């Protein structure tokens, strides 16, 4: 496309006008960018993230902003498309000139945007689950959600405690399921676990009894793990009960940690265990839990303003935004590089996802304590006490 000289000067004029209007505002603004999958297949992740960011930026501004400046939030919707995400990322950097970025709903969109922010040297706090976002460590890239590797470790820790060492696995072939499956297979030997049999299903499959029958007939399987996401695990859980396999302990992943899973799987979900963030069981945490305050406050704020049940995904956006805001406060500056250095120094930040301790070699900063092992009892979550 040829750019029209007229349009260009118009843009320049526009930019000037914005520049001129800046001093009129009492304190000036700091621009924070975000690219989220508000629509499209990952919309159930992107939507709560979008709402959370908007709600809290409004709150922060109402209470005086950060480092003496109001936050101006620029959000683009990539519809779950990595190509679009990259285009928007470039726009955030070149046109909007943001200081930092909190966003990137899926691992796919995040990976597409990383080079843009790395080149521009702008801190990027991702909300995507995949471990490849922070491994290897990139100077300007951070993330808030737990990784699938941690979920595997949490499940295996629980299996070990129950002295179950021979497991069967059934995983979704979608990105989430495949990635977590690979991580689980990788860490299983460290926990002395043996994966006896492995099955898979397509993300849109409607019946998994054939695969489960194979697992059922495999000799010696003491527990079954289902890394998966979306409606697949709900169907697997229902088929599991249909085949009368409930005598064998069954583990789901954090990918289904929402009330709708219990609702969809119904009675069949009873007794299923899964690792999940503390946010999900805010009201059930003991009073002395360090995360109790943060998660109950976030739940209250989200549910009273948005009128929808809280999800861990919105929580990731909350964590990302506040890690950034606190870093800006500590730096007492909105200079991208200074903010980056302060993000990396985040220590003891209590978020909805866990307690974050970042370092130059760890841009996630969560350990296994960030996950709680839950069991579904009477149609609700129950915390599994260690030792049971």
């Amino acid at each position, binding site marked *: 496309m040829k750019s029209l000289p007229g349009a260009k000067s118009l843009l320049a004029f526009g930019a000037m006008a914005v520049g001129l209007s800046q001093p009129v505002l009492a304190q000036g603004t700091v621009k924070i960018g975000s690219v989220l999958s508000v*629509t499209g*297949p990952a*919309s*159930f992740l992107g*939507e709560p993230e979008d709402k959370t960011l908007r709600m809290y930026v409004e709150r922060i501004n109402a209470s005086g902003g950060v480092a003496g400046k109001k936050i101006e939030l620029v959000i683009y919707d990539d519809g779950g498309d990595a190509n679009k995400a990259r285009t928007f990322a470039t726009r955030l950097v070149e046109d909007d000139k943001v200081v930092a970025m909190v966003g990137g709903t899926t691992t796919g969109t995040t990976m597409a945007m990383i080079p843009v922010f790395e080149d521009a040297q702008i801190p990027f706090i991702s909300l995507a689950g995949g471990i490849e976002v922070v491994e290897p460590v990139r100077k300007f890239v951070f993330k808030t959600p737990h990784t699938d590797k941690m979920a595997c470790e949490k499940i295996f820790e629980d299996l070990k405690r129950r002295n179950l060492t021979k497991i069967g696995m059934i995983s979704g*072939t979608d990105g989430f399921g495949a990635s977590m499956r690979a991580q689980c297979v990788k860490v299983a030997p460290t926990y002395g676990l043996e994966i006896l049999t492995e*099955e*898979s*299903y*397509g993300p*849109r499959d*409607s*019946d998994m*009894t*054939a*695969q489960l*029958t*194979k697992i059922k*007939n495999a000799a010696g399987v003491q527990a079954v793990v289902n890394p998966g996401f*979306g*409606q697949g695990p*709900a*169907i697997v859980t229902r088929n599991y009960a*249909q*085949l*009368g396999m409930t005598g064998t302990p069954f583990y789901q992943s954090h990918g289904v940690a929402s009330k*709708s899973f219990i*609702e*969809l799987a*119904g*009675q069949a979900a009873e007794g299923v265990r899964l690792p999940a963030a503390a946010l999900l069981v805010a009201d059930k945490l003991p009073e002395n839990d360090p995360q109790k305050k943060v998660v109950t406050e976030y739940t209250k704020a989200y549910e009273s303003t948005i009128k929808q049940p809280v999800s861990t995904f919105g929580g990731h956006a909350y964590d990302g935004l506040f890690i950034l805001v606190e870093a800006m406060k500590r730096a007492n500056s909105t200079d991208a590089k200074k903010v980056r250095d302060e993000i990396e120094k985040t220590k003891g930040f209590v978020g909805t996802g866990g307690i974050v301790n970042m370092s130059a070699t760890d841009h996630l900063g969560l350990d296994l304590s960030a996950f709680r092992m839950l069991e579904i009892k009477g149609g609700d979550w129950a915390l599994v006490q260690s030792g049971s």
Partner: protein
Amino acid sequence: MAEFLQFLFSGLTVGAVYALVALGFTLIYNASDVVNFAQGEFVMLGGMVTVFTAAAGVPLPLAALIAICTAVAVGLLLHRFAIEPARGASAVTLIIITIGASILLRGLAQIVFDKQFHKLPPFTGDTPIDVFGAAVQPQTFWVLGGTALVVVALYLFLEKTVLGKAVLATAANRLAARLVGINTSLIMALAFGGSAAIGAIAGILITPITLTSYDIGTLLALKGFAAAMLGGMGSPLGAVAGGLLLGLLEAFGAGYISSTYKDAFAFLVILFVLFAAPNGLFGRRMVERV
């Protein structure tokens, strides 16, 4: 044996749904030469409308009826406002129109309903029935029975009623049908309404087993299309046979070979069948008219 039966029932259930979707394809294809890629959306509408009207307090049978009527209305509107105005266009153009319609319907469903997954309670409880060692959900029998009923009803309609014969006549030769006084435009509307109803019924029957969401139609349309091709595009018998065969291939492929390659396995078989018999198992031999 128990294992075999388990795979068999699994395959039949899924296959019955593919068969219903394939039947929908067949009906419209026969009347208009159009492969209606919005067929999957009818299945989605059946499930979603039932879920939402039932959630609003309407008893399930009535909710199901409302869902079927909604789907039929959408089918007729699709015909009236998208297919009919493009009457003279080539089949390819019409097919592209249906793809557009399917995207539109999916988008609308996202707004009108939501983006979550939903379930319906099984019609008759969810205590598995033991069939010689295989655990079968009662809903499976509803799906199989419902499919059989639809197939028989469709057969009776096509073979025993004047209107049905008019559909067959239109399918055989549209120009000749028009010459003997058949209102082919009405027949096409009928085909769209009918296949919408079949799709909706499929959606209602399977929702208790498979759950439903706004975008469940895409894959079902694809699988139903494969089933229709396997059975022979345009043959109702072929559609049913193709659907069941595809379902069974998937289940036995997953059970006896490898779940990772079950789709590949099913499509490989389809490829081989189409190599040997390009018109499908029950397809009419095409005669190219000049």
